[in-house]
């Protein structure tokens, strides 16, 4: 397994060269980072090159890194993360590309390479507001018709902004601002390294 990952890393280095913005192996998985302008081209090479041959896009997701490590994050905010699988070579690869503009995240679409990207990109657009250039049908997919906002962004509250109820006087369904209070039972904590180890007291 380890040798297979090493040979994959070597193949990636030789084939992609300086288009790689970062590559690392952790927990038995290879993560490849590329800049947004190389994203589509690298993805095409990953699919077609005889030494790589990633036939399948298993997963594509948006990630909002803005609150990572309670403000420790300094890089760009939005990324698209793909999980690729090579059925013929039996290896997986994670491909990440950050969108250059935090206010208006745009990335090229991979639908022309892997058709499975179609709904995944719609989902990432719906939940994170990442626009995929060249997508044939970039509609919302999971949220309600006429939904406002991108709910998986870290600044979107878990309770949402509006709630819906039936109003007996107007005899129709109405939307109104949420009436529930946000509540956190267990606060989010990041401990220092080795916290609670016996030798560290």
């Amino acid at each position: 397994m380890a040798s297979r990952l090493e040979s994959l890393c070597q193949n990636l280095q030789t084939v992609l060269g300086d288009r790689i913005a970062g590559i690392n192996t952790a927990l038995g998985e290879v993560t490849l980072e590329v800049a947004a302008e190389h994203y589509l081209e690298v993805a095409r090479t990953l699919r077609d090159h005889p030494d790589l041959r990633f036939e399948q896009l298993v997963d594509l997701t948006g990630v909002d890194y803005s609150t990572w490590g309670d403000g420790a994050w300094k890089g760009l905010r939005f990324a698209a993360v793909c999980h690729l699988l090579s059925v013929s070579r039996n290896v997986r690869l994670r491909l990440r590309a950050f969108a250059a503009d935090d206010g208006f995240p745009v990335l090229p679409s991979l639908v022309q390479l892997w058709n499975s990207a179609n709904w995944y990109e719609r989902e990432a657009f719906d939940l994170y507001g990442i626009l995929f250039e060249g997508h044939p049908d970039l509609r919302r997919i999971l949220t309600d018709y006429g939904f406002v906002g991108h709910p998986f962004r870290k600044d979107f509250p878990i309770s949402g902004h509006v709630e819906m109820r039936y109003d007996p006087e107007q005899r129709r369904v109405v939307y109104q601002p949420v009436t529930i209070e946000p509540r956190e039972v267990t606060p989010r904590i990041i401990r220092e390294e080795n916290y609670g180890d016996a030798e560290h007291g």
Partner: protein
Amino acid sequence: MAEIRNYTINFGPQHPAAHGVLRLVLELDGEVIVRADPHIGLLHRATEKLAETRTWLQTVPYLDRLDYVSMMCNEHAYVMAVEKLLSVEVPIRAQYIRVMMDEVTRILNHLLNIGTHALDIGAMTMVLYTFREREDLMDVYEAVSGARLHAAYYRPGGVYRDLPDRMPQYEVNKFKNAETVRRLNEARQGSLLDFLEDFTNRFPTYVDEYETLLTDNRIWKQRTVGIGVVSPERALALGFTGPMLRGSGVEWDLRKKQPYEVYDRVDFDVPVGVNGDCYDRYLVRIEEMRQANRIVKQCIDWLRNDSAKGAGPVITDNRKVAPPSREKMKTGMEDLIHHFKLFTEGMHVPPGEAYAAIEHPKGEFGVYAISDGGNKPYRIKLRSPGFPHLAATDEMAKGHMIADATAIIGTIDLVLGDTDR
């Protein structure tokens, strides 16, 4: 001459053959489907967002509610991702229990799929037979976890508790007399493993019964042969996994290719289809049930061997991940502290990212977890197998008759809880 226009009809969201709340907008030219546009999200519960506000352990029960017909498999992928981040070893007995329960889940899932698929396209009886067997397996679920459906049985580091020594018994009431109760309790006299073994002995006969009903059934073949054909190349490009991919003739099974837990120690075969139509996918699922039955038998044999090999703990002894025993907690100060910290603050997972995938009954179920070192996940992405399958409905249904839409929805083994998340 009158103008001829295409009809657009809504299939669902309250259609009994839509397997939940799927709204399928079909554009029809006469009776032929020109375009199928599934509208999903009516069951979207934002599980991934909820997970970001819960501790790592509190997320486990949410996973049951995704694909609510193969509950333990969902949990399995999640706990595997957490274990990968934590680099925790799972005791061997827990691994066998997990494999056994995964295969029980696979049988549960395929029974439901084949039963309802047949029901949708006109074979009423099937569902009655498959639900008879599901009842026994749900009793297994209940015996190990206390719940028939939403088990919450797997934990990061192992499983919640060891298999029970006795099965719950039926009691006489105004619907069941003493004779019925005696008959029902006959197989439940021993331990859970005895009950399950009794089931695995009976089950191949049941599968034969299903095959008698369907496999050579002329109506069943007319409704499924040549419907929704997907070539191997298209199946890969469309992100198909599991029986959908194998039905198209691609030999790909994570249990064989990237073995996890103890799948490399059990003996089973992977069935592969030829034509990639609904009928081949049905045959693949039938054979997978037989193979799952074989795996369950092997796991029972191993687990029953309660001498040196089969015995042992079922959850890790890493106290930062799993709680100490109840008994120790009452007497030991350190154990009390561990317990308190674990259930108030929760476990801390080192920063990093991990993707863990399992061969879920429906395909590859993956969990992509990002941690920033906190007691809650930073981001959980659930890769549900039904999502890309449903996305391919348009391609599969195009050019078929409207009645075939039901066959295609049935064959992709659609569960909206899994697709919408």
